[in-house]
């Protein structure tokens, strides 16, 4: 009994494990790295007597289910993230509140060709994100590997084993890059490119941040990232650089108030802070290195000399990206990526290595039959997992067990299909190798 009493005492004492109850909590759901969140937490808590901010950090890919699964009144107050698809879905599901008569009047609604705010004011633009390729200069120099300029460069054999990327189901950055390739190059050609790049990857990381992390440390050479992760490494003194690769995508980083928030007033206070000059200026810190949307901030001298310029970047923006298309098939593209890349990565790498080897031998000793076998193998290995008009990609309620079971049944089918395809491609490549081997 004594122990029981002790237990209750301990429980009572332990209720607030961190912090106190003095200031009201604003709960912000975000997919941003710790550097950004800690900087904003510190700055916001210091200037607000009424509120203090807490963060729920998880991949933006899980944001929708996280918010929706909670009853109104117990949801987080604010969602803050770079993925336009997530905002599109949150808005469609009625999980955002309009932010009318709100925000910083000095932030232009349109920069270049890019609309910063949601036309109906369900979410505001807080910063800009551009997507591209980051590389480690020392790593590439040491191996004599050229610097890439476009996504398609990453499929070339000289990058085999030097690329690192994350999974589209776990990283909203990777998801956005995958979608921009799918939309820019078309579904079939897009998947072909993605699968070839994935075959060139040394590893598929679990979180987006591990991509820039292993490039800054020189563990791998290059990979697809969002600009600020590369720039923060560069301005912190690491030998890394970054380019906005084609087909490039620039998207506004959004911030929105959740419908059914526990503390909507506190949420508004936090949003207002992120849009204020002080909140925008935080973005220029070297460890954050994001692109503010408040033009005035760029005029200040406290940013590095070669910091990207707001209007340069938005000028080069290719307005091909359709968030509503991406959002409608969001989960399935992630699942397709996992099934054909993440879970089959070692097989994909092995067969990509063979494909590069056969292609190289063909260059020195041309052979029409072997070339045909190689093309056949390539087409099969780098084929889109399903057709773009597949019923599975149409938007449907996802949460029912029946639907999950239906998807799982299709996944089992793809897994078997992938195994068969790989086996067929392996035998064709072996035949091609045999043909080339028989020649002197």
């Amino acid at each position, binding site marked *: *009994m*004594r122990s*029981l009493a002790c*237990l209750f005492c*301990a429980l009572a004492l*332990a209720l607030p*494990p*961190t912090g106190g109850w003095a200031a009201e909590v604003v*709960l912000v759901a975000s997919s941003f790295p*710790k*550097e950004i*969140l800690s900087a904003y937490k510190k700055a916001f808590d210091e200037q607000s007597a009424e509120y203090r901010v*807490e*963060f*729920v*950090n998880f*991949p933006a*890919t*899980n944001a929708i*289910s996280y918010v929706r*699964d*909670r*009853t109104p009144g*117990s949801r987080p107050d604010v969602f803050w993230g770079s993925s336009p698809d997530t905002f599109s879905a949150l808005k469609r599901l009625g999980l955002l509140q309009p932010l009318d008569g709100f925000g910083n009047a000095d932030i232009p609604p349109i920069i270049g060709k890019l609309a910063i705010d949601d036309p109906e004011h369900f979410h505001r633009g807080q910063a800009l994100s551009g997507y591209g390729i980051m590389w480690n200069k*020392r790593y590439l120099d040491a191996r004599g590997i050229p610097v890439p300029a476009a996504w398609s460069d990453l499929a070339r054999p000289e990058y085999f084993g030097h690329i690192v990327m994350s999974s589209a*189901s*776990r990283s909203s950055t990777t998801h956005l890059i995958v979608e921009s390739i799918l939309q820019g190059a078309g579904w079939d050609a897009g998947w072909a490119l993605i699968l070839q790049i994935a075959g060139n990857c*040394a*590893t*598929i990381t*679990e*979180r987006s*941040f591990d991509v*820039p*992390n*292993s490039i*800054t*440390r*020189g*563990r*791998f050479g290059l990979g697809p990232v969002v600009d600020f992760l590369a720039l*923060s*490494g560069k301005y912190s003194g690491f*030998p890394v650089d970054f380019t906005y690769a084609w087909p490039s995508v620039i998207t506004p980083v959004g911030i929105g108030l959740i419908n059914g928030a526990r503390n909507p007033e506190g949420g508004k206070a936090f949003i207002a802070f992120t849009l204020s000059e002080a909140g925008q200026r935080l973005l220029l810190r070297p460890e954050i290195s994001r692109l503010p949307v408040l033009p005035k901030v760029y005029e200040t001298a406290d940013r590095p000399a070669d910091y990207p310029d707001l209007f340069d970047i938005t000028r080069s923006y290719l307005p091909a990206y359709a968030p509503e298309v991406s959002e409608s098939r969001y989960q399935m593209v992630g*699942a397709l990526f*996992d*099934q054909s890349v*993440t*879970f089959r*990565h070692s097989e994909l790498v092995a067969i990509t290595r063979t494909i590069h080897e056969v292609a190289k031998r063909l260059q020195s000793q041309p052979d029409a039959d072997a070339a045909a076998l190689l093309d056949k193998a390539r087409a099969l290995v780098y084929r889109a997992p399903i057709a773009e008009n597949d019923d599975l990609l149409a938007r449907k309620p996802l949460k*029912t*067990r*029946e639907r*999950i*079971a239906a*998807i*799982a049944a299709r*996944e*089992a089918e793809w897994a*078997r299909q992938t195994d068969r395809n790989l086996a067929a491609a392996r035998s064709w490549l072996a035949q091609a190798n045999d043909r080339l081997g028989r020649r002197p």
Partner: protein
Amino acid sequence: MNQRHRQTAGKAWIPLAFLAAYLLAFFVLPVGKMLIAGFANEEHQLASGSIAIFLDNPLYIESLLNSVMVALGASVLAALAAVPIAVTLWRFRLQPPLILELFGFLPLFVPPFMLSLSLQSLLGRGGALGMVLQTVGDLDPALWGLPGMMVIEAIHYFPLVLVTLVLNTASFAQQAHEAARLGNSWSRLITRVFLPLGFPGLAFGMAITFLKTLDDLATPLSLGITNLIAPQAFFRVSTYGSQDPLSSLMAVAMIAISIVVWIVSSGFVRHGAIDWNPASGGRTLAIQPAHRRIGMLCLAGISAFYITCYSGMILNSLAGIWSHTPLPESYVLSHYASALESETGSFINTLVYCGLAAILDVVIGLAMARAIEHSPPRWNKALSWGAAALLSVPGVALAIAYLQFFQGTQLPLLGQPLDATWFLLPMAFSVRGLPFAMRACAFALQSLPAPYVEAASLSGASRLSIGLRVILPMMAFGLTVAFLICFGIAAVDLSSAMLLVPSETDAPVSYSIYLHMQTSTGRGTGSALAILTIGFVALAMSAFVLAARRGWNPASSFRRIMFPGTPTR
């Protein structure tokens, strides 16, 4: 007397009800609901739909086999490395210093993904050995695939296997030497004495290695390995939500494998009581200096190996800029400063969650150990191993069960969903620690001779003073051991934490380390945090050793019972 008995019987149901409620709410019902979710359709009828899909997908079968293979490989590798060293130590009658023995339990208190990340820094292309040896080949463990994970887990759990082996055999080293002097050959002694004696410890250590590897989530994810059952379940829950029937099935499969392993290992662990008590075994025969030297060389070699393994992390925690050079360009202490500045919260969280879990474990473990002790003798062993097997639910499986069971449950006072608070974390941790708590508490109970209690109660002492002056002092050592073990197990339980952590500010330190390791600019802060944690654990262990050496002598509690007049303090 009679009345008192009735009173006792009347009150006895309170702890029992508490025990039953706890087991029901945090173990039986969640896991039961998950079983139903795995095997039933939407109308709650038994259906084979999801099982058919599971069996139909070659990926899941492969993942299941891979998981078993990696876990088996890791435990066999760890055993293969431990046996020769244990034989050497036994042969030369060298009992490692107590502190080194305790460090053998360090694998239970440090998550293995730290080793994996440290080796990536050490052997990866970006620096240190990996860069120097690039011409030989790629040493980065992330490129080794499943064997890489096997080796990492084996390195991580090797000290545990070694120590259980040493503790089980050490007390007979003396007799073996006597036997050897009488003309028995050492090879005969090793096969006839060492192996039979050591086998229970070996089986125990291997079983722990197997179960922990099977359940490990952070290590395979840090290596980019997803074709294992735990990561598959994790990916499914994060893609499709906790209602996904296939993740329930994966969790059920993991539970089934764990139960089989417990049962198999229980067959070997005949007298599983590990010799925890540091005060056992006297030495009369002098040890030859040459033998001592060989033994010490062995221990020094092992220590050096581990320091090398973790040097990647130590370097990272001190490195300013370290990018594609053998050694860092500059060294800073700022990572430690920022770890201390931003992560004191997660240290406090760990203390709170794991402290709560460990207190619960000791209380419940004691109650269960007592209940088992009082059951008929022939049921004794079966009951204790049965309970342990049932409770050895992998963390991933338990977290999935909790997410399914508590989804939508609102907390009455705070108006929050239960799974949005940190409440489920200590609960999951306590269930995970319970099998260990039961063993440790059973040991503590064994150190409580019933005659003393009887004598005290016959001499008219009240129940309270018997508890305070007889039972507690005699069991203090065992209970402290139980508390520490449960605390440590909870502190490294990333598998359930990764699924149950509600927000970053509520994260325990092991999860904060995992997050910090994946920030964009290097692994400095995460490494610093990891080193601080390992340092803290090592310090706590050393303090425990000192406390055990000083005055915390079980003999003093004997004296108090023999001479009831002596004051307690």
